């Protein structure tokens, strides 16, 4: 299932504004890669180019290549809709569809691909909810609105929704930043299980979280306000947090930043 991502000379723009420049990185299959860095350094922006969600903002575009097992996601004839089926995404704020039941939320992505068989959909829903460690909590109220759940449950519901379509890669944009520590722990445990099956890329502001969940860590920085952000280095999480090769990284993780 899981695939390798290679990013080559990626430059990202919002209209005239050059947001991120010259990113080169590789994400190995079945690993968790964390993107860390100060606010505004473009880590979320880079994440969003990995499933072509960046370009939904008016005026936003990027240059360079994002290769998914060798296929350029920005190549000619590539349908962004198909890319998003393959590369799933979980957002900072849990965003279940409030008008849909819990079950319908989970299978919403599958319905888009034309799946209709109710029994098969129910099975997928159960499997995805189990995969998101939510099944036990919601199995008796699958017909209730997705908005009736707590914040942490809603975020796990969104993860279930994202993995229900069996993507190759799962992108997570600060998935725990709006959650309490217990819900955060639940999601971190979940991320550890998810990497058995998926390639996971997670953006986080929380360096302890990056250290806990990720195999590799990419540090992004920006030289000054208004300048484009850039990738400083990417390495094994252990190395980044104990002995980074760049001074900027060391300053950031040790809190001597700015």
């Amino acid at each position: 299932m899981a695939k390798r991502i290679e990013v080559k000379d990626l430059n990202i723009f919002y209209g005239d504004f050059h947001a991120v420049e010259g990113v080169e990185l590789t994400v190995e299959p079945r690993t968790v890669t964390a993107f860390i860095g100060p606010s505004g350094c473009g880590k979320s922006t880079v994440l969003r180019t990995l499933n072509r969600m960046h370009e939904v903002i008016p005026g936003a575009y990027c240059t360079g290549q994002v290769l998914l097992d060798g296929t350029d996601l920005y190549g000619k004839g590539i349908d962004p809709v198909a890319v998003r089926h393959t590369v799933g995404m979980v957002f900072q704020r849990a965003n279940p569809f409030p008008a849909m039941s819990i079950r319908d939320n989970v299978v919403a992505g599958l319905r888009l691909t034309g799946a209709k068989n109710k029994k098969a959909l129910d099975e997928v829903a159960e499997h995805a909810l189990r995969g998101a460690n939510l099944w036990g909590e919601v199995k008796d109220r699958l017909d209730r609105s997705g908005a009736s759940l707590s914040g942490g449950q809603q975020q796990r519901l969104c993860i279930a929704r994202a993995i229900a379509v069996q993507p190759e890669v799962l992108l997570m944009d600060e998935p725990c930043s709006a959650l309490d520590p217990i819900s955060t722990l639940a999601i971190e445990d979940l991320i550890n299980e998810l990497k058995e099956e998926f390639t996971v890329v997670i953006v986080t502001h929380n360096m302890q979280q990056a250290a806990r969940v990720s195999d590799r860590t990419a540090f992004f920085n920006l030289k000054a306000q208004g300048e484009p952000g850039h990738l400083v280095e990417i390495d094994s999480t252990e190395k980044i947090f104990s002995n980074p090769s760049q001074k900027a990284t060391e300053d950031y993780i040790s809190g001597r930043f700015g």
Partner: protein
Amino acid sequence: MAEPNPGTDSQAVSAPADAPDPTGGATGPSKPRPSVRTKTPSRTGDRVFSGLSATVAVLMAVLVVVIFAFLVKSAIPALSANQANFFTTRTWSTDGDPIKFGIAALFWTTAISSVIALLIAVPLAIGIALFITQMAPRRLAGPVAFVVDLLAAVPSIIFGLWGSIVLAQAGFLEWIRSALIAVLGWIPIFSETPSWTDPSGTVFLASIVLAIMILPIITATSRDVMAQTPRDQIEASLALGATRWEVIKMAVLPHARSGIISGSMLGLGRALGETLAVTLILQQVSQMQLRRVFDPSIFTGGDTFASKIARDFPEALNDPQSLGALVASGLALFVITFFVNGAARMIAERGVKR
């Protein structure tokens, strides 16, 4: 930066001291904040304003009651002198003795013309609102929205003139009329009526003009709620691999549903009460015809509550009973629109709760 006492007096002066710290560190007060004040100052402005607004609010409520009371008071003599059933009688004769009048025909014409106007306008309005908020490039969305809003500024007398002079002669309307009669003629509403050979003067024509007139309000309310579709809902569906249309189906329409419904109800309210345009367009059906048979077809003339009152009012001024009868029909219209607006409000509120 939370100012604990956003008051009107000396405390507000401390605000500049809370300007961001130039060192870039945590912002905070650079001198001790005054403690929470213990004495409540006299907030004269507050009292005057709340008194004024309360008065206006109460006055409005009183006004509605007064209007209702006026209608009831002027209608009662005519209603008690009425020798026919007010609700089931189709004919209207208030000049003889005894007087006999009923609102059945008026009610039907009012209801069917408004409902058909709604059936035409709502899909169009949803389409236009979706276009403006979701599909159109920004260059185009602005002008389209402007033109639709402009439609609301056209005086209804203009719509009446245009409808009865231009639209009545339009070939495509005659074509639609013939097609409807040919295909759906077996449904009484669309059956052909002898002596009405073209769209002019018919309920059908009035419905179309009404549809154009209520289009702006439905479009505007739909557009507003659609534009407020939470960004995260749209991104959630996009990230699942939704196409543009699927985003509309998954995120935009569920969010906009209650707004569309309440906008439609507002439109319905306007269509029910619209007077001038309808009066100019509709041709009356003779009392003899009304007495003979109930014709539910939209390809015939008739009168709505409002057009009946507008037409007969000048003559009825000299005769209390004729006037009372007209007021009674106005009362009926008032009650109907009251309930339509109430329903719109209920639906809108239910939408908010969810």
